[in-house]
């Protein structure tokens, strides 16, 4: 089976088309839907269509091309958003990397030792049920205690660490599953070669885990972005999308399109992150020969 994924041009075109379709649905619903939303019983099943809840698409876009504050010399909104996006992306990337490394190490460790798996896995799951808001201040506080020589812990590192806390989880779960996925056939072949666990890992388990690893990496990227943004708010790190979201929320009443700008920024960050993972997927194409083209 050769992969015959559609050409990039078509993918981009269709992707753009998808966004246009969504925008059209948005405007169509805004035009036709009731201002109070569709309420059944006590449940709002479809959103309100007021400008406050659903600003016009063109308003949201136009807002990007006005200054942050109309004070004149302010930079354009899109510039500010772009800057914040890249800041958050950088922090999220560090978090992602740390998370992936930790997640892989954990998965490999659990794959190696049955007991480690049963002892660790519940706690790994458990770690994800601890609300970020509970750990963010702890991380910041403990981080601020660290000062080794010329190295001193900075706030962005706390944010990256929190991002990695969310990012490692899908990797450890996905990789654990993937490492256990090779055919019996192939595991036995390795057994006949009586190669150690390590060689089996490198030659068989890791390659076989690629189909499991790719969605995990992508989820990790998404989680890292989410973790970064939440942590930025939580510990008040300046410069990124998270802080921007909270600050612009204050203007929501009078300038409903403004809070959407950082949301688009967050989406941009996410898309870039997902794009990088897609590139990784491309590089690993030969480990996904059995897959139907995406």
């Amino acid at each position, binding site marked *: 089976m050769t992969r015959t994924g559609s050409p990039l041009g078509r993918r981009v075109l269709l992707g753009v088309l998808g966004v246009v379709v969504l925008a059209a649905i948005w405007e169509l619903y805004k035009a036709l839907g009731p201002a109070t939303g569709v309420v059944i019983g006590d449940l709002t099943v479809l959103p309100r269509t007021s400008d406050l809840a659903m600003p016009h698409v063109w308003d949201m876009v136009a807002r990007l091309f006005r200054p942050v504050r109309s004070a004149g010399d302010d930079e354009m909104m899109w510039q500010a958003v772009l800057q914040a996006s890249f800041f958050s992306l950088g922090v999220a990337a560090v978090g992602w990397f740390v998370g992936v490394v930790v997640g892989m190490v954990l998965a490999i460790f659990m794959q190696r030792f049955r007991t480690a798996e049963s002892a660790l896995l519940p706690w790994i799951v458990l770690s994800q049920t601890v609300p970020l808001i509970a750990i963010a201040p702890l991380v910041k506080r403990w981080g601020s205690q660290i000062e080794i020589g010329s190295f001193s812990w900075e706030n962005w590192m706390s944010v990256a660490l929190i991002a990695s806390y969310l990012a490692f989880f899908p990797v450890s779960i996905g990789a654990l599953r993937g490492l256990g*996925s090779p055919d019996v056939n192939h595991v036995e072949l390795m057994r006949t070669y009586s190669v150690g666990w390590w060689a089996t890992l490198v030659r068989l388990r890791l390659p076989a885990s690629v189909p499991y690893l790719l969605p995990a990496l992508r989820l990790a990227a998404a989680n890292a972005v989410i973790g970064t943004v939440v942590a930025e708010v939580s510990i008040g790190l300046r410069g990124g999308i998270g802080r921007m*979201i909270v600050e612009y929320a204050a203007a929501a009443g009078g300038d409903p399109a403004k809070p959407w700008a950082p949301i688009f920024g967050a989406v941009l960050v996410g898309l870039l992150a997902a794009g990088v993972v897609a590139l990784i997927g491309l590089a690993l194409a030969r480990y996904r020969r059995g897959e139907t083209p995406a």
Partner: protein
Amino acid sequence: MKQSASLPRTILAPILLGVLAVALWQLAVVALEIKPFVLPSPVSIATEFSGSVSSVWAASLVTGANALIGLLIGAVVGIIAAIIATVLPITDELSAPLVAAASVIPIVALAPVFYTMFGADKETARQLVAALAVFIPVYLNTLRGLRQARPVHRDLMRAYGASAWQATRAVTLPGAVPFLFIGLRIASSLAVISALIGEYFGGPIGGLGKSITSAAASSNYSLAYAYVLGAIILGLVFYIVTLGLEKLVSPHRASASAP
């Protein structure tokens, strides 16, 4: 080849590790005289927890209900969307950037928007936040799983002139089940966390998230962690139920060392 782990090992090992960790924690707090507002000791958390079991329970019910509704919506939509994307690849191509976008819109960004759209006095926004958080891992993993069908099985379905839906049901879905459940496993705890963070940004009062922040704001960390403990237990319950479901519906598999 791994033998399936014995019951004592699956139950005892994590408990032992947990007990060890908690003991170390207690020891550290006592030995280093860590102040409770820096890090409360397990004992004080446990005391606080047993003292406020009823309010933790009440808060857990609120958050748990939101998480559950979000989990159900997100999982069902995620699976259906993945199937549609497999059966009609064009929808996948159309939605690829949207899904990628949806998967990274941080809860922080979306929660306020949802509250404005669906009412700040309703639980709906939180449920949607949880649903979105669940949708992503379920959709991504299911989609990947649906693409793993072996070529010979795909050929077989083609040979039977099976409809796309039939092929999905007979070959692709069963093959995707392990992937789907990875998604669900991740989603189950994510649902709780998201419903909880959703509370951070508004909505009716009464859930775990609000209780944690309230307690923490007045430095009552023992109480805050009692609620955190509630959240942990809630997340664990979600995870275990998902795991049980996986064991129940997983098709027979010939794998030397499936975890």
